[in-house]
């Protein structure tokens, strides 16, 4: 704690204001849960809810098991074993993160649907002429979403396996366990906090997913929220549905926090990073190499190649494929949001540095909780108070000046930026705060003794020292905003279509091939943060 002597530090208000900013959409959603509208609920309960709950349950359990099996096995092989190609797979298996789930989804459908090449091939086989495989079903949604999300579990469990140090595994060997028993009885239980936090992130993304499930016509809460707002024009029904979804999301936040705090008790890394890897020889090594190659091919190489092939076909067909306007809008929005998020992150990180009391740490956690809120929920939670505020101001103006003003904030870019800020503040804050924590507290004290005030210290000391973390934060948030679909779709003013929105429009008409080029742009952008992550990992 620095400067705990100033009772009335003005910096503390920044934390309060920012926390309040996040609380507003949350409170809006909760208040609609507390004031249920009987008719809407009855309607929802009889028509939508059973399907939504079953679908969500199937999706969540399916993706959870799929990503845990995939992520933990790959994490164990690359983190604790040695086999041909291990170095290559350790980083390349993180690449599928670069694919947004909705891009993966339309590639999958393009390849696997009735009219896709695979099923056509099957139908040429004798006896299977009339065979049709329904791929818009739960198992395939689970596979598609799982393939883009497993890297969270993979990276965290791998880091944990690597950090366990050799002593803990060797200890279990001296106590009579063979390597397989040691994995299940020691390595796996110790990694549980990391695996569960990875899984919590996966499930937050799964609950928040809007693009992939709508491509598959698989109804979940996110699609239902969107439909009730834009299909039935009932913002209230959308809010009621959001209030349910937000409970699931917050439960995940708590689970994640609980296990994250356990990590330090489970940290056994003091034995040093030296790790005698388990040598997988002969057929075992080959089998693991084959397994890793298969996952990498299915989750990354095939989709990427298909995107490139389609893009080339579209370009060669001479069809007008000018996405310049979309790219420009995407980048303007992304850059503006990234700048705003990073600015706010610096203020927040500095305010917490000055006073890291319990209440401040809690408020920082509240302010950054948006990463768990699905974009659809957040859009509803932000638009409702904006509409309410606009109405209030309009009424006041017409009452005072007898003048009918139009909507003020509604349908402006400001609403979008506000929603992005709430949703992605955690991303920017994370890297800026960790950079801030690397700056020794004595620097602040030295600056204070030399007579510098908070703002000057921040500008002259921290800002220059933060540049690397700041750059990372800018890139990460920029790319996240670029890939973002539901908030953009639901709050964009007329004319502000981004690449993601374009993909939504094209895929809702089944135009897989034409969606490939904007999809490819997004994948390329998405690779940047993955490579930043990989570089960090290699250090």
């Amino acid at each position, binding site marked *: 704690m620095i400067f705990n002597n100033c009772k009335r530090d003005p910096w503390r208000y920044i934390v309060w204001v920012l926390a309040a900013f996040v609380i507003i959409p949350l409170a809006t959603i909760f208040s609609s849960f507390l004031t249920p509208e009987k008719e809407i609920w009855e309607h929802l309960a009889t028509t939508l809810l059973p399907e939504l709950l079953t679908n969500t349950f199937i999706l969540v359990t399916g993706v959870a098991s799929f990503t845990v099996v995939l992520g933990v096995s790959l994490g164990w092989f690359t983190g604790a074993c040695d086999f041909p190609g291990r170095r290559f797979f350790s980083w390349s298996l993180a690449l599928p993160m670069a694919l947004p789930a909705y891009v993966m989804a339309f590639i999958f459908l393009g390849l696997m649907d009735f009219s896709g090449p695979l099923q056509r091939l099957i139908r040429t086989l004798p006896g299977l002429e009339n065979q049709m495989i329904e791929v818009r079903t739960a198992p395939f949604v689970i596979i598609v979403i799982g393939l883009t999300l497993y890297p969270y579990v993979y990276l965290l469990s791998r880091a944990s396996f690597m950090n366990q*140090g050799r*002593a*803990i595994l*060797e*200890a*279990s*060997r*001296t*106590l*009579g*366990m*063979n390597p397989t028993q040691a994995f299940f*009885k*020691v390595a796996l*239980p*110790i990694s*549980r906090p990391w695996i569960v936090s990875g899984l919590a992130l996966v499930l937050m993304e799964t609950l928040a997913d809007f693009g992939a499930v709508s491509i598959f016509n698989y109804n979940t809460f996110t699609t239902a929220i969107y439909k009730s707002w834009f299909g039935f024009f009932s913002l209230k029904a959308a809010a009621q549905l959001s209030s349910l979804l937000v409970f699931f999301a917050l439960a995940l936040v708590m689970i994640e926090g609980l296990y994250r705090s356990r990590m330090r*008790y*489970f*940290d*056994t890394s*003091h*034995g040093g990073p030296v790790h*005698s890897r388990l040598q997988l020889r002969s057929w075992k090594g080959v089998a693991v190499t084959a397994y890793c190659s298969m996952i990498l091919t299915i989750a990354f190489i095939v989709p990427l190649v298909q995107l490139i092939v389609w893009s080339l076909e579209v370009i060669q067909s001479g069809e007008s494929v000018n996405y310049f306007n979309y790219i420009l809008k995407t980048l303007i929005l992304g850059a503006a949001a990234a700048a705003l998020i990073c600015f706010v992150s610096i203020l927040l990180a500095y305010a917490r540095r000055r006073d890291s009391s319990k209440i401040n740490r809690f408020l920082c956690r509240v302010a950054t909780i948006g990463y768990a809120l699905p974009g659809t929920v957040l859009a509803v939670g932000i638009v409702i108070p904006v509409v309410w505020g606009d109405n209030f101001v309009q009424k006041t103006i017409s009452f005072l000046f007898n003048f009918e003003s139009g909507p003020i904030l509604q349908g402006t870019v400001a609403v979008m930026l506000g929603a992005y800020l709430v949703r992605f503040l955690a991303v920017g804050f994370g890297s800026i705060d960790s950079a801030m924590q690397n700056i020794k507290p004595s620097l602040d004290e030295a600056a204070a003794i030399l007579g510098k005030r908070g703002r000057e210290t921040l500008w002259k000391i921290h800002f220059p020292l933060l540049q690397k973390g700041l750059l990372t934060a800018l890139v990460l948030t920029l790319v996240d905003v670029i890939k973002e679909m539901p908030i953009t779709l639901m709050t964009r003013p007329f004319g502000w279509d981004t690449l993601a929105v374009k993909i939504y429009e094209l895929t809702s008409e089944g135009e897989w091939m034409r969606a490939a080029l904007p999809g490819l742009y997004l994948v390329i952008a998405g690779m940047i943060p993955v490579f930043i992550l990989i570089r960090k990992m290699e250090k």
Partner: protein
Amino acid sequence: MQLDNTLLKVNDIYKSFDRDDVIKGVSLELNEGEIGCLLGPSGCGKTTLLRIIAGFEIVQRGEVIIAGQQVSSGSKIVPPEQRNIGMVFQDYALFPHLSVIENIAFGISKSDRRARRKTVDHLLELVGLEGAGKAYPHELSGGQQQRVALARALAPEPKLLLLDEPFSNLDVTLREKLTVEVRDILKASGITALMVTHNQFEAFSVADSVGVIFSGSICQWDSAYNIYHNPETLEVARFVGDGAIIRGVVTGPNQVSCGLGELSGNLSLPCDSGCHVDLLVRPEDVLHDDHSEVGAQVVHKSFRGPNTLYKLELSTSEICLALVSSHHNHQLGEQIGIVPEVENLVVFPSVNKLL
């Protein structure tokens, strides 16, 4: 002739990592119930030797035999879990997700719950942690963790216990207390143990026999007393304990002339008269006496409570150490009288014969 009760036999083993020879022909033997210790500076290969015995490293040549069974040789290696050994790790390697009881019971293969419980209770009592069974490792102090690690290693009743720098993570006062305790526990359980350490006091207070190891080979394998009082090589003499090496000339049977005057005592090496030697003089061999004819100048002193360690410059401008009761307070630069009282003259063939 090999004794029947040899439990561990390490036979002329060689080990190298990437052409870097770490172990160069080490042999040692431990009898049943004996506590051995490998003492050496960091990087001397002592931990590698321990890991070879545990089965974590392979050897290029030589063999390891535990309880009559060959477990390591150039061609075969029995995995650690089948060697019937226990190990206490430097950082204890306690399983953070298991309670103290669960940690200790981890390696017990007995299926009978009550028998297991009995063993665990017995071990908790042995290491003095009766009340702490339900605690988790992170809730324990360093010393308690160490004791849990010991109990866990003893639980499967291994034939041989290996201890890798078991006290290095503890603070000094706790370390002294625990070395004595650990020795008592090991002796009470009657187990054969081999410990690795760089700290000679740990080695002396725990082990029955100590092997001093330098750059991959054992220089001397002996009792703690002999390692200290009768070091076989100059390296051992320098590494173990305080002391000074001063030049001397053998002047007769059991007689050496040096900067401290004429000394008589049992020569550790048979030497002819006129032979140049290096003589080991321990601080406790040099007594202070104001009336003595032999004088030396105080160049440094460190107060140690009951006594003061003086660093003295002799008339030959060689340095020797003297442990003097701290009531005798002398100033730096002062000339004081000393009396050498050396019973055993520990000498080494002199490298420098010019004097």
